[in-house]
């Protein structure tokens, strides 16, 4: 196996033991990127020189045994939604053309502090709005398992890069499933932590009350390790929790005997792809075989999730995206027609169709006369959905659902049909609305060879339980060990 395909925790041992240097490892990933990214297009920016410089610094730290963490010397990539000091940050949009942040996001600061090597910035749906990465203003990213299909989204670049070993792991963001859904569609592990566990400072906002950063990796252990290093209270983010950060990795003992796993009836709906249903059914048997007890639970307000989500998220987005007006940074289109004209031209040319659609939806639902019926009502239903989960978690320790109702769909297939596209997130959205943690792990393949994902949802701040069960499941199965056939991307197929 190529060194780049090893898991992070395996590489950490090699780096620590001096078997490999961070520079050599970074160069190996850069080679992989050079070989396939011309077609895969997971990266918007590759930070070649900065990465090698950071790698050398990491090698020094490793040699001198100075503050070594499991990520020291590890080539990590970021969704291009995280502000990186001195490195262009696009958020997948033209409106940020030419913008170079003068500061690092807290997540980036922490990764750098841990000694990670920032190898590049990954493609995404514009402003994280989408489920296929086709809404990127620059180019779509392909699914490493089938170049005719999407990698999911909005962290599609992040999932595709991890899946095809263009980095050890990546950091994505999840507003309604944007870490878990692409992880499922690309056959990797994606963790969305509890809202407020990882700082949002410097992460470009889509929907502030839902956005949360988290790791995407090729195994559960890497997600656990990364979470410990990026989580924790940040005084720069008022919504960041005063909660203890755990050594999550130490809880991954494979023992889930007696653990209660809730299966919500509302998630096994019509329209669920038969192969997804089958894979999830088999997963339940695997878990039972490990000694877990599966119980039926109910989340009665699930049917409102998509509606509530698209009111709350678009409302917040309409306000969050008001700052892109051509005045201060990024794109400015000024044809001499005055202020209003500059606003209109800048925002018209700077934003893509989906972003405009959501700004309009959000503006509408916050407008006088509609606020009560839309935003306010959605907030109330959101509270009910939180209560659903609290009730359900009295009966079980974690909840199991499919991550996505279908495997990866074809490029272009849903572009003209936003509503179907919105339904890609139907199983992942509730978790964001409730603020609870969720993880997607590979749970099988379709006959065509497309990966499928299994989702575990946990109690507020109970990352330990979902990581534990996901890890036990992973240990008991072989799905995560399969790697995509890169031949097609290399032009061999």
């Amino acid at each position: 196996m190529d060194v780049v395909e090893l898991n992070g925790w395996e590489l950490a041992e090699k780096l620590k033991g001096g078997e490999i240097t961070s520079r050599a490892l970074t160069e190996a990933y850069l080679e992989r990127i050079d070989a396939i990214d011309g077609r895969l297009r997971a990266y918007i920016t590759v930070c070649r020189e900065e990465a090698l410089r950071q790698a050398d610094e990491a090698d020094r730290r490793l040699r001198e045994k100075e503050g070594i963490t499991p990520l020291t010397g590890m080539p990590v990539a970021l969704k291009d939604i995280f502000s990186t000091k001195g490195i262009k940050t696009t958020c997948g949009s033209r409106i940020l053309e030419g913008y170079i942040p003068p500061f690092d996001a807290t997540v980036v600061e922490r990764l750098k502090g841990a000694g990670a090597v920032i190898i590049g910035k990954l493609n995404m749906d514009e402003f994280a709005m989408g489920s296929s990465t086709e809404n990127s203003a620059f180019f779509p990213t392909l699914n490493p398992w089938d170049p005719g299909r999407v990698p999911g989204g909005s962290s599609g670049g992040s999932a595709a890069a991890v899946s095809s070993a263009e980095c050890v792991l990546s950091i994505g963001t999840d507003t309604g499933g944007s870490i878990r859904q692409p992880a499922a569609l690309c056959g990797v592990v994606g963790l969305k932590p509890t809202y407020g566990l990882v700082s949002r400072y410097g992460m470009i906002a889509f929907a502030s009350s839902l956005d949360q950063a988290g790791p995407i990796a090729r195994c559960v252990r890497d997600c656990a390790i990364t979470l410990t290093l990026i989580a924790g209270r940040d005084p720069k983010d008022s919504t960041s929790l005063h909660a203890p950060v755990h050594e999550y990795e130490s809880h991954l003992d494979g023992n889930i005997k007696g653990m209660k796993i809730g299966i919500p009836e509302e998630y096994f709906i019509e329209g669920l792809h038969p192969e997804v249903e089958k894979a999830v059914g088999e997963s339940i048997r695997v878990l039972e075989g490990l000694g877990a007890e599966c119980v039926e639970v109910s989340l009665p307000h699930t049917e409102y999730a998509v509606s509530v989500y698209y009111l709350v998220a678009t409302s917040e987005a309409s306000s969050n995206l008001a700052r892109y007006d051509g005045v201060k940074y990024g794109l400015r289109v000024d044809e001499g027609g005055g202020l209003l004209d500059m606003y209109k031209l800048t925002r018209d040319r700077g934003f893509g169709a989906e972003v405009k659609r959501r700004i309009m939806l959000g503006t509408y639902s916050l407008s006088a006369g509609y606020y009560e019926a839309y935003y306010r009502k959605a907030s109330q239903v959101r509270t009910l959905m939180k209560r659903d989960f609290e009730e359900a978690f009295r009966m079980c320790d974690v909840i199991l659902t499919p991550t996505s109702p279908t495997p990866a769909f074809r490029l272009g297939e849903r572009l003209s049909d936003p509503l179907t596209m919105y339904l890609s997130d139907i199983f992942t959205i509730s978790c964001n609305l409730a603020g609870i943690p969720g993880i997607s792990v590979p749970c099988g393949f379709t006959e065509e060879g497309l990966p499928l994902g299994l989702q575990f949802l946990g109690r507020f701040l109970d990352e330990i339980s979902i990581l534990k069960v996901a890890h036990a499941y992973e240990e008991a199965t072989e799905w995560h060990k399969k790697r995509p056939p890169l031949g097609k991307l290399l032009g061999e197929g």
Partner: protein
Amino acid sequence: MEYEAVIGLEVHAQLLTRSKLFCGCSTTFGRPPNTQVCPVCLGMPGVLPVINEKAVEYAIRMALATDCRINHRSVFARKNYFYPDLPKGYQISQYDEPLAEAGHIDTETPDGRTKRVGITRIHIEEDAGKLLHGEGDDEASSLVDFNRAGMPLIEIVSEPHISSPEEAVSYLKALRDILLYLEICDGNMQEGSLRCDANVSVRPKGTKEFGTKTEVKNMNSFKFLKDALTYEIARQIGLMEGGERVVQETRLFEPSTGRTRSMRTKEEAHDYRYFPEPDLLPLVLEDEEIEAIGVMLPELPAQKKTRFMEEYGLPSYDAGILTSSKRLADFYEECVGLFNEPKTVSNWIMSELLRLLKEHNISMEESPVGAERFTALLKLLKGGRISGKIAKEVLEEMFATGKDAEAIIEEKGLSQISDESELLQVVDRIIADNPENVERYRAGKTKLLGFFVGEVMKATRGKANPQLVNRLLKERLG
């Protein structure tokens, strides 16, 4: 028909915190454009606000000082609108759940009555930046200075309890005094630290229903407030008498013409699309926290005035003037501590010291005459070293030179002449020089005593002890 005005004021006060409301940038006024900015107050992508605890404390001070009910939970909200000076495209403010509600301020009406004006609400919000027109490379363009963006403000909204321009001025003065006493705002209206908008309507006197209101903006002095309201009330009455309707709109006061002009009508008003700010948690305040701030509250103008009247036996007028600023009131009390004649001190401050400060165009803080020197002068006066007239001259000299009274008296030989034999010589000389007037006096025209006193004073360059001169003249003139 007789009309009455119904006025409510919305006052924005900039808080004297060292840093901005949601970031660590300095709040110093008058720095070069865009030098007091950071990613947060520039609204760069991904930044988040963190509330300045000091600003909350200051806002609570104001709420307590105006007897408001402080909400244990208040919520920040986004007020959305596009303008180049508004970096995020929304202002973080408070909307349906403000910090404090239902308070009041007692003010004095022109005829001396006390009037209680209700405070609807007090909330915390951030300021916007400032547009600079025609200062760029080409005249048509405008530049933005974000130094002011994110400055902490409180908005104090009054009930429509104000019925005249004079009352409005008196309310705003009382409000400003409180802010100054609390040391939470510098109250500078020219620099915009204190800004005022007014909601104005008129109705036939005695009726209960409100007329259609207009909102008047841009009144950055007490005079402009009075002028704008006077004009606007007359304008609205004029419309009604002419059978026309008042249109609900926002109007701008123009100091150059003394008029208000329409800025935007109700139809053109923004829909601000308020919603709870998801980047900030609700502001939760415990009783203990509020009480701790309450305990630290200083004595307020109204309380101090009452105390001055009781403790020092001052008339209401004196007490009002002396407590009109905290600095002046403190000065007065310092003086009384050094020279325990409250009324004398009050007279000399009000008639002489304040006049000199005004003439020299300086503030109490800049006064070259401190309490020690000021009372030393009053002591010399009381001890008979100098006369009242000389004391006034000496005080002026103290202002001009910064020297103390004793030195000036010595230098200029201004000591009062109280030596009877020395004065007798002068008295006798004056009597000898004015035989005709002496005769008229003795014939019964006793009013001429003043003439003789004047002559003696002239001859002694004002240094003669007036009481002694009087007695000696009377004796000699028989």
